[in-house]
């Protein structure tokens, strides 16, 4: 039996001041004042925003296969420190998560570590090769209870395979999660195709390579009446297509990453591969369109696309470097900077964008993304919106350090994370209370 926890005078969703009592992993009381039980841990939460524990729909944990870049353990710690209580682990591991065996292994390892719930995403096709559907049914009915399927890292390019996958996942009410990238239009592509790529002599990655697949998949989803989730939307055109598809009643959801909401292709001028990511950083006009789409609900969620890479895969020529950047520990700070502090969204919106909606899309909303209310599991994130910090790549919990935010100041951060009432991350100032 763990000690009860009283979180005093917290700001629920950033708009309601109340205190919480947590007992045995459950929120047992929400009230203006709570009588503190004798053995309780008291967290003085004045000025702290309480959100439902964050849920990432797009994380690369690299285990099995690239434990030199990240492990489920280091990734879990990074997630907890970033305020996450659940992440969906992408399938592009080695071996690929295309069988019940691999997804169960990943799921169990996550539970064993216990810092977050790790929900494996299954591969759509065997080996991510885009040729044969993987045994999605077996993964769905496995202990890992997989509901999302993605070949992320590569696009499910063949329209016939995509159609079949969309149809097939209806068997277990799953969704296909698409990395929208026309492979032919992006052969050798290095960065967004535009004025900066023209000048830098880096092969261009046209916006249309994403938009054409987003449009195709929306139409396919409509045609077969299935659910598609589009990952990391990066262009203004993709936003237009999603908006159109939703108006049309197509069951499509979409995500944006913190980096696509903050950074632009101008970063490539440094030729620093830390800014090399798939899809590429786009123009300011795209960033603005994405922010608007997040604010008006066209984009459903924020997802990190946390992609750790070993230093040798980033300390090299731009063209030779791997795509991807860390995101778990910096996401909340970046989102506060670009959405909350700019007035584009409230903390209540952040709760929806980073917890409730992703939990619903990932079909883990019986456990995560729950209301902060009596009787609900105590999966909670305490945010200090005034705790500005400067990102130090080496100080991050990830095994890798490929963050594009090194040296940049973010306005706030998660100071405590609770998974079923157990603190999985405590800022130094709060550690004392639990000692």
């Amino acid at each position, binding site marked *: 039996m763990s000690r009860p926890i009283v979180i005093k005078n917290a700001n629920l969703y950033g708009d309601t001041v109340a205190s919480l009592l947590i007992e045995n992993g459950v929120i047992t009381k929400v009230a203006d004042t709570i009588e503190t039980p004798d053995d309780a841990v008291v967290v003085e939460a004045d000025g702290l925003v309480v959100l439902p524990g964050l849920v990432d729909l797009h994380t690369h944990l690299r285990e099995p296969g690239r434990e030199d870049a990240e492990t489920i353990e280091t990734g879990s710690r990074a997630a907890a420190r970033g305020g996450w209580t659940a992440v969906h682990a992408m399938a592009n591991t080695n071996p690929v998560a295309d069988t019940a065996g691999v997804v169960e292994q990943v799921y169990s390892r996550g539970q064993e570590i216990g810092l977050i719930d790790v929900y494996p995403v299954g591969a759509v096709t065997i080996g991510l090769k885009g040729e044969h559907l993987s045994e999605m049914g077996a993964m769905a009915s496995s202990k890992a209870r997989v509901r999302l399927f993605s070949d992320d890292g590569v696009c499910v390019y063949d329209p016939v395979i995509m159609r079949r996958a969309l149809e097939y996942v209806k068997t277990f009410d799953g969704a296909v999660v698409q990395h929208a990238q026309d492979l032919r239009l992006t052969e050798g592509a290095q960065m967004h195709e535009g004025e900066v790529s*023209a000048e830098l002599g880096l092969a261009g990655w046209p916006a249309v390579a994403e938009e054409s697949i987003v449009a195709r998949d929306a139409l396919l989803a409509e045609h077969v009446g299935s659910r598609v989730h589009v990952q990391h939307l990066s262009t203004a055109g993709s936003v237009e297509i999603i908006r159109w598809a939703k108006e049309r009643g197509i069951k499509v959801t979409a995500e944006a990453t913190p980096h696509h909401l903050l950074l632009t292709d101008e970063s490539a001028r440094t*030729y620093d591969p830390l800014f090399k990511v798939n899809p590429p950083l786009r123009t300011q006009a795209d960033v603005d369109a994405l922010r608007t789409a997040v604010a008006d609900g066209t984009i459903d969620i924020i997802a990190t696309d946390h992609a750790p890479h070993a230093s040798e895969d980033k*300390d090299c020529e731009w063209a*030779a470097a791997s795509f991807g950047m860390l995101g778990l520990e910096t996401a909340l700070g970046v989102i506060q900077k670009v959405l909350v502090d700019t007035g584009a969204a409230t903390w209540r919106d952040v709760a929806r964008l980073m917890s409730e909606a992703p939990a619903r899309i990932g079909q883990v909303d019986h456990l995560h993304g729950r209301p902060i209310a009596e009787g609900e599991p105590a999966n909670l994130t305490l945010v200090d919106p005034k705790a500005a910090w400067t990102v130090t790549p080496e100080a991050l919990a990830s095994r890798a350090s490929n963050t594009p935010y090194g040296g940049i100041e973010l306005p706030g951060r998660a100071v405590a994370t609770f998974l079923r009432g157990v603190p999985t991350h405590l800022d130094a100032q709060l550690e004392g209370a639990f000692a």
Partner: protein
Amino acid sequence: MRHLLTTKDLSKTDALRILDTATQMAATQEREVRKLPTLRGKTVVNLFFEDSTRTRISFEAAAKRLSADVINFSAKGSSVSKGESLKDTALTLQAMGADAVVVRHWASGAAYQLAHGGWLHGSVLNAGDGTHQHPTQSLLDAFTIRKHLAPGGDLEGVTVAIVGDVLHSRVARSNVYLLTTLGAKVVLVAPPTLVPVGIEPWPCDVVHTLDQALDTYEIDALMMLRVQRERMTGGGFFPSPNEYSRIFGLDGDRLRRLPDHAIVMHPGPMNRGLEISAEAADSPRSVIVEQVANGVAVRMAALYLLLAGEEAAQ
């Protein structure tokens, strides 16, 4: 000057300074004893990640004629096989005490990374990085144009047409910025498939046939770029060599449409019969062979300006 990475951030003063210095260097190369003691004790490393015997020999001659010690470092690896990392190579060169690193690389930006990675103390001289920049090539082009059309001055009033694969050309990128900085007007002539998307901010005009360029502009210098035959296969940037020659090739007829004073240039190596006919290549207007000699003088100037001067100031 700390590094020479791109012509885009070269001021007119700096560019003219390099060209003036190159003029003095060229004068020394007409003497019996062409070797100068200027850079004695300095070490110049030719770091080539991409084969280019011509460029390497030009830099080697430049460094040796200034009495620098030259180390040729041929690094294996390509975009397909990564090979030794840029960082490890840089650290090795640092340990060797390289005062200047002349780098040729298949990857755009490699020279910039080498200069700004914090791995090296020496100066970095970009000898061609991917499809980005090749500053000394454009400086030698400017030097050649200036010598023939504007001795001692800038290139105000000079029109230069650059014909060919602009998309993949570091020579075109370097020349567009340098020549316009020097006051010239630049016209790019290329099929739309070989013009980069996002070219709008470049300070130049773009036309899509050589005839149109000859009709529209009074061209003083015509620069033919090398056509990579491999660009015709796999998704084809243009349908056939024949069609390319017909629309973009410089033959005798087109040569005769140029003003009398106009010069014909090519960075080499040429595909005779494809982008340039033998008649044009060997005509008296062709300064192609002279470009090679000017290359040594320009590279001597660049090395001098990078390496001479206070060590503390570096």
